């Protein structure tokens, strides 16, 4: 029984620490940004580059952009993937889109960055982009025969043109500014502009109570809940309950609760940007550069949002709310389970299996990623747990590349659209590319001479190009005969 309580406590502590610290400053604006991208960027502004007559120099980058900007949930990913494959640019760009979407979308980037570090998010982004295009091209060459004969329908689906209005652009840029101001750990955002001391005698006692409730061991990478954190959790619960009343029927118009929920969201972001330090008989509130920057960016969001027409901002808020409902609940459950599991895993196991950056460790990480299925974004706290337990960052990246791409669900979905043979080839390629990505990033982390890494990558890319060239020649040869 004690052991069981210990496990539950581990889960609850992990959850509280996440809610209090990481999630707020990145996920709250990230949900709004993802919602704005889904609602305010007309799909036709990108899909028009994905028609069947698009040149490959245009269609591959466009497919990556579609993955990054349009696709956060399977509602968009599956139909767009099938559409690009069957009625548009073909197998290659469709695969690039499919591969890049889970790693390149704004939610994944913001979340990876805030939990595992900006450098790691950058590596995940760049390597996914490069390898997504690489795998797409390889698939296109391998299966050129069936690709050439894919059903000849009209190009009407991709012919529509649209552009993003100035108000929508302003909202998107301002939201990205909120995201950056809230998460980057750089001067002058971290500087303290001034301090106010509030006479709150219970602050220090409350902090002691919190540490008592959520005991933590910094050596194991665990985090406690601060006074500020407890305030943020309270605000988060308030947002949740008011948003339910205010955003559920937002499509038909806003009500009082909508404004309450939005104001609470802004307040939460501002509170999270302050620095609260409990002292004897008082609570010291430090006004940071970050709070000023977040405030400014929020004002900019409001300024541009007022110029959106009613349909647009309603759709924006609905999409944001939908992402929250769809992803946040699973994420909360996932973080809890990760906290429980962490109590059961011995760090030695992880260190023995994947503590070094070698082929074996990367392969193990990829196999784990393929056989484990975690809901959207839960792969990130899982990765964080492995990192704390001593996993090397190289295999960690390999795992993060493979896991969202190769869950059983996505394999079945892809197989339904493109058939089994192509799917297994795709799975194999992703596994190989993920291992290479892990080895590359791991070598960089280990401080291997960048020139050496460049030569290694160049050799890999070179052999790929040679293989592509050989396959291309083979494909042209029968045509001459």
């Amino acid at each position, binding site marked *: 029984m004690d052991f069981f309580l210990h496990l539950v406590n581990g889960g609850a502590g992990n959850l509280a620490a996440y809610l209090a610290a990481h999630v707020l400053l990145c996920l709250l604006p990230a949900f709004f940004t993802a919602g704005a991208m889904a*609602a305010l960027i007309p*799909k036709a502004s990108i*899909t028009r580059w994905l028609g069947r007559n698009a040149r490959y120099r245009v269609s591959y980058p466009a497919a990556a952009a579609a993955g990054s900007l*349009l696709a956060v*949930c*399977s*509602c*968009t990913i*599956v*139909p*767009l993937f*099938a*559409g690009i494959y*069957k*009625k548009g640019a073909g197998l290659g760009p469709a695969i690039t889109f499919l591969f890049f979407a889970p790693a390149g979308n704004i939610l994944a980037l913001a979340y990876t960055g805030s939990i595992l570090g900006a450098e790691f998010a950058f590596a995940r982004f760049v390597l996914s982009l490069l390898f997504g295009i690489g795998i797409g091209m390889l698939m296109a060459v391998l299966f050129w025969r069936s690709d050439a004969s894919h059903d000849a329908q009209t190009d*009407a*689906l991709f012919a529509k043109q649209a552009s993003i209005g100035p108000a929508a652009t302003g909202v998107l840029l301002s939201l990205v500014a909120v995201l950056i101001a809230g998460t980057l750990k750089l001067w002058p955002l971290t500087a303290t502009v001034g301090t106010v001391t509030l006479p709150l005698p219970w602050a220090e006692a409350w902090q002691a109570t919190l540490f008592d409730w959520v005991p933590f061991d910094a050596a194991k990478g665990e985090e406690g809940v601060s006074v500020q954190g407890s305030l943020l959790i309270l605000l988060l619960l308030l947002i949740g309950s008011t948003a339910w009343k205010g955003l559920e029927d937002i*499509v*038909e118009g806003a009500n009082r609760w909508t404004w309450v929920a939005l104001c609470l969201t802004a307040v939460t972001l501002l509170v999270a940007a302050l620095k609260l330090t409990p002292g004897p008989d008082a609570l010291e509130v430090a006004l940071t550069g970050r709070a000023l920057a977040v405030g400014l960016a929020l004002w900019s969001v409001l300024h541009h949002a007022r110029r959106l027409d009613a*349909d647009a901002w309603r*759709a924006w808020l*609905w999409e944001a709310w*939908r992402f929250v*409902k*769809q992803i946040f609940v699973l994420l909360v459950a996932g973080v809890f389970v990760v906290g429980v599991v962490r109590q059961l895993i011995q760090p030695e196991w992880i260190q023995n299996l994947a503590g070094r950056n070698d082929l074996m460790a990367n392969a193990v990480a990829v196999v784990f990623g393929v056989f484990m299925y975690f809901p959207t974004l839960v792969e990130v706290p899982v990765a964080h747990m492995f990192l704390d337990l001593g996993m090397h960052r190289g295999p960690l990246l390999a795992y993060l590349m493979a896991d969202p791409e190769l869950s059983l669900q996505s394999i079945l*979905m892809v197989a*339904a*659209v493109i058939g089994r043979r192509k799917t297994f080839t795709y799975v194999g390629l992703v596994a190989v590319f993920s291992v290479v990505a892990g080895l590359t990033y791991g070598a960089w982390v280990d401080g291997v001479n960048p020139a050496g890494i460049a030569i290694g990558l160049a050799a890999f890319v070179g052999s790929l190009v040679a293989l592509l060239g050989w396959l291309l020649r083979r494909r042209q040869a029968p045509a001459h005969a």
Partner: protein
Amino acid sequence: MKTVKILGSGCANCKKLEAVAREAATTAGVEAEFLKVTDMKAIMAYDLLATPGLVINDKLVSSGRIPTQAEVRQWMIG
């Protein structure tokens, strides 16, 4: 009697769209039969790039977004 199809794999937006469409049919006084289409192949038979899709009498009227009740009423009557 109209035939209304909701295209989508069962995500939150599809449920919302169905609720909006049913409400619109009731308020417009239009008799309608509702069908949910979840099979990907059947969905891709229509020209759409994002679900949810709304089909009234086999014509795709909206896709990738949730229309308002007023819009759906117009399509139902027209």
